């Protein structure tokens, strides 16, 4: 599953130190501290609006933290600018360039130093593996929602990143497509890529995670090895989440008294 060999030195590990993020005067991410080392798969779970997507964007360098630092400390990070070329991200709502399906993948490869022939091979391989080969010459923007999500995965995969961020990569897929995508992510991981993904599908989290991060209201409330987390989460909100309880739903009714109290305890 290694698409092309790079002899670039690694940029991992990635360290977030006390990172917070603000927009429109609200603190949306609060005091995040964690380290991502190579060779693991992390799945981030949490209710809608917890800040999972914002967190991935902060890690990937698309957002600037309001305070704290996001630092890559591997030997490859020294050079500076090239850091982005060794990461990839699959967004929750995929962005399709106004080009053909094949050119969408080819475009991503332009930012890498890869020969033309190699590029063609890679495009063909990833499209085939994501079931898009028959649509290679179609405009990407008329693909169905599920197909777009698979193209986004193919595009990220093509550049053989050292670390890949995936934001709910199977949200629009039917069960069998979900299964196939999980297999592909597994294969990408097997080839040495660090996986950081979010999911609302707890079954998927169980299947995919080496470790689980639970987020709520912009904070990471628990970060634990997967089996340990799913057996017995330490945090009471995480426990409630796993049990399927509504963490925010009744805010309107209950006037937030419950959740506010809880927040103060954290």
């Amino acid at each position: 599953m290694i698409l092309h060999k790079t002899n670039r030195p690694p940029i991992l590990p990635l360290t977030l130190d006390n990172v917070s993020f603000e927009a429109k005067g609200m603190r949306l991410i609060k005091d995040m501290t964690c380290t991502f080392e190579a060779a693991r798969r992390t799945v981030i779970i949490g209710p809608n609006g917890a800040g999972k997507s914002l967190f991935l964007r902060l890690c990937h360098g698309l957002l600037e933290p309001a305070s704290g630092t996001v630092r890559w400390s591997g030997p490859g990070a020294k050079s500076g600018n090239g850091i982005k070329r060794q990461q990839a991200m699959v967004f929750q709502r995929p962005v399709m360039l106004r080009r053909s399906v094949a050119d969408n993948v080819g475009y991503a490869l332009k930012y890498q130093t890869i020969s033309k022939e190699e590029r063609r091979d890679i495009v063909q391989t990833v499209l085939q593996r994501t079931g898009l080969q028959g649509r290679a010459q179609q405009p990407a923007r008329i693909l169905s929602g599920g197909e777009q999500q698979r193209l986004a995965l193919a595009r990220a995969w093509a550049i053989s990143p050292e670390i890949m961020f995936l934001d709910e990569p199977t949200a629009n897929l039917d069960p069998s497509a979900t299964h196939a995508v999980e297999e592909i992510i597994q294969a990408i991981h097997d080839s040495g890529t660090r996986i950081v993904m979010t999911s609302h599908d707890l079954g998927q989290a169980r299947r995919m995670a080496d470790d689980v991060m639970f987020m709520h209201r912009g904070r990471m409330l628990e970060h634990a090895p997967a089996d340990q987390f799913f057996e017995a989460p330490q945090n009471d909100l995480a426990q409630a989440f796993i049990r399927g309880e509504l963490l925010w739903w009744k805010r309107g009714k209950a006037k937030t008294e419950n959740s506010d109290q809880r927040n103060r305890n954290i």
Partner: protein
Amino acid sequence: MTDFSAAIGSALSLVIGFDPVLVEIIGLSLYVSLTAVLFAAIIGLPLGAAVALFSFPGRTVITVLLNALMGLPPVVVGLVVYLLLSRAGPFGVLGLLFSPTAMIIAQTVLITPIIAALTRQVIEDLWAEYEDLLRSFGAGPLRALPTLIWDGRFSLVTAVLAGFGRASAEVGAVMIVGGNIDHVTRVMTTAIALEVSKGDLALALGLGIVLILLSVGINGAVFVVRRMAEQRYG
């Protein structure tokens, strides 16, 4: 009513007769307006894109200004260019006044804000959609620019077309800086104004019909090309 039938008659005979004077005037009109559009695009496209992509102090002011200057009065533009190019003006030594070059300069000034303002809108919308992805690939606004211009090319063509429409239809600026000199700076619109002042309304209207047909033809052609291309590239 006889005026209208006479006008249509004279328009027809002008077009069918392939009147050499008319050909000369249309040729100069197209030369001046297309050259002005070329320069305005060279300035306006990057300018609009820069305002769309980079944040700098005064960006909002420039945005409002560009929008307001879309309605720049041609007479005022003509006047300013006249003062700059006249013998007494700072660029008088170039001797450009009352030449097609002066008309190109005036029209360029007139339509650059139009192209820039519309470009800003197009590029801003596209960047809003692409930003995350392109930044994820490692591209900043500068590196993203060619991609944005390429992917927005159909809308940008419309912007450029709007500039061309304005340039080829205006009379105030070219009249002042060109002087409507026969065989030198007479274009469609100044010729129409002249025929009006002579009282030959049928001929004026005939020329006007030719001018409008020209504009409709160019717009129609671009529309068809755009439709076809959009269906191909989505």
